């Protein structure tokens, strides 16, 4: 009995370590490779070169900006919609959930060709201008981030009794703007933060749509170009993007844990 238990434990450790190796070995190899830019010694030369490249910062800033606008526009669009559906149109939830999943089904390449086709001719000439193209990029990213945005917000709304809170606020004399700003938004803080980071992570690394709409201006196409042309820098970029993604994930954990720990267990 005891031996079986120990054997089981051994096996679970074995599989866990195997799993870790599967994920970590390529990463470790990439990292080590990125340190070999200088012959025969380990150095951060590749990283230095990446950080010294003005295009790195330019594209990074551009994608960051687009990401932030996407988050803002996406939240403005999704939060009231998801709230209203939970409050008044619960039957529509099935449909909106399905629609929010469509970006997973429709490939980005199809989406971007569709966008260019529709918005490059009459009556919309969006692709002809700088602002128009950027607006189109943001719109496309909202669609792409829709599954994360909608899911996160809807889960956040499910955690609070939307209807009772709204009605309580109404009976106390509050109108819609007050209800949204003082009751709903503060209680969706964690959900909105997760939605925001997931969206940002998606936008920062996105390649297909960006390369067709704005080309090398965005971070995704820039990374791809570096990857094609520069051996060591591409590895260092891969590591940098990994670190960035992990940092975003870490932030989500940090913010959501802050809330969860505040509530003592069993307090209702």
């Amino acid at each position, binding site marked *: 009995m005891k031996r079986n238990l120990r054997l089981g434990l051994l096996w679970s450790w074995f599989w866990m370590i195997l799993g870790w190796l599967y994920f970590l070995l390529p990463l470790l190899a990439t990292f080590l490779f990125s340190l070999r830019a200088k012959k025969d010694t380990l150095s951060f030369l590749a990283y230095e070169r990446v950080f010294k490249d003005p295009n790195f910062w330019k594209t990074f800033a551009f994608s960051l900006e687009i990401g932030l606008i996407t988050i803002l526009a996406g939240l403005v669009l999704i939060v009231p919609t998801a709230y209203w559906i939970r409050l008044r149109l619960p039957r529509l939830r099935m449909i909106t959930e399905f629609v929010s999943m469509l970006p997973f089904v429709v490939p980005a390449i199809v989406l971007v060709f569709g966008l260019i086709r529709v918005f490059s001719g009459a009556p919309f000439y969006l692709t002809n201008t700088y602002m128009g193209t950027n607006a189109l990029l943001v719109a496309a990213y909202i669609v792409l981030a829709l599954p994360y945005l909608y899911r996160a917000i809807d889960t956040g709304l499910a955690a609070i009794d939307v209807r*009772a809170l709204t009605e309580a606020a*109404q*009976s*106390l004399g509050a109108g819609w703007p007050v209800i949204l700003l003082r009751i709903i938004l503060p209680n969706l803080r964690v959900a909105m933060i997760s939605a925001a980071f997931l969206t940002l992570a998606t936008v920062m690394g996105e390649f297909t749509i960006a390369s067709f709409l704005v080309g090398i201006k965005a971070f995704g196409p820039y990374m791809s170009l570096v990857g094609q042309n520069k051996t060591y820098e591409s590895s260092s970029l891969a590591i940098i993007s990994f670190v960035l993604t992990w940092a975003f994930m870490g932030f989500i954990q940090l913010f959501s844990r802050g809330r969860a720990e505040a509530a003592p267990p069993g307090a*209702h």
Partner: protein
Amino acid sequence: MAFLVLSHVSKAFGQTQAVKDFNLEVEKGEFISFLGPSGCGKTTTLRMIAGFEQPTEGQILLEGEDITFRPPHQRNVGMVFQSYALFPNMTVAQNIAFGLEVRKMDRAKIKERVHEVLSLIQLEDYGGRYPYQLSGGQQQRVALARALAIRPRLLLLDEPLSALDAKIRLELRQEIRRIQQALGITTIYVTHDQEEALSLSDRIVVMNQGQIEQIGTPFEIYNYPQSEFVASFVGQLNLLPVEVLDLSKNICRVAGQEIRFTPTTNSILKSGKVRLAIRPEEIRLGMVEGENLLRGEIASVIFLGSIIRLRVKLGEGILISVDQFNERHFQPPRPGEVVTLHFPIHACWLL
């Protein structure tokens, strides 16, 4: 004119008629309960008074003013929910202050009012706590305070005690009544718990399938139920099949034994199926001259603490419940024993 008037109020959700022709007049300071099983339309009626639902027909007047279609935030009606509905992002004091801030009340005055209602619910030291740091009972008291802070014209409570455990429920019930009487606030209380309705209310509105079955004081509702539904929903009731022998002398037969009953209006008798109604607590064991007597065999004995419920078999398929107060020296009869039961003539009536 009454303080609150609901006249011919109906509400339909698609094909379903949730409330049918509801008529009620409530006087200022009255405590009214809507009592009925789930789905009887009591909560829908309350929500129409609050403004969360709009009637398909009829009119609601508050202090003579037509509020039928006025949005809820313009009615000045306080509401307490079953789920407390405290704002989780705000402290107790901020929750209570919310309605006052919306009204743009002066800061100093808000502070004063918050303190005032906190002491009313005896939670003076809890102003800085968040809802999740309170027990269910405390949360509901805060919800009550929050609703009262805005000095509403009307206080609505939607099954406020259902989510709490038995002991807290009893405590809070008394507290609600105390506060209501202290403030003299007109209150409507929705519940499916007959004990709550009986102990709290000035008047009870018993509802079934969207309609009012009976309106009356707790005493009237319990002792003079006007329909079989009210009689069986409020308290325990024996309904025994009878054969009416002589209507002029008020004599009928139950399981082959003669019984005299309280004079009944003929309309009930014309309805066809007639039964003898009697509450279990009116029946005693033993023989008393001049009272109705029934003989039967004990089928089961159920111990309920303060009372002992006996089920007595009078005939084939005819069982009667008898409630006896528990006393320490009382030796309850055993199943199979043949016993005689007695009850006064005025205790039973035809239904």
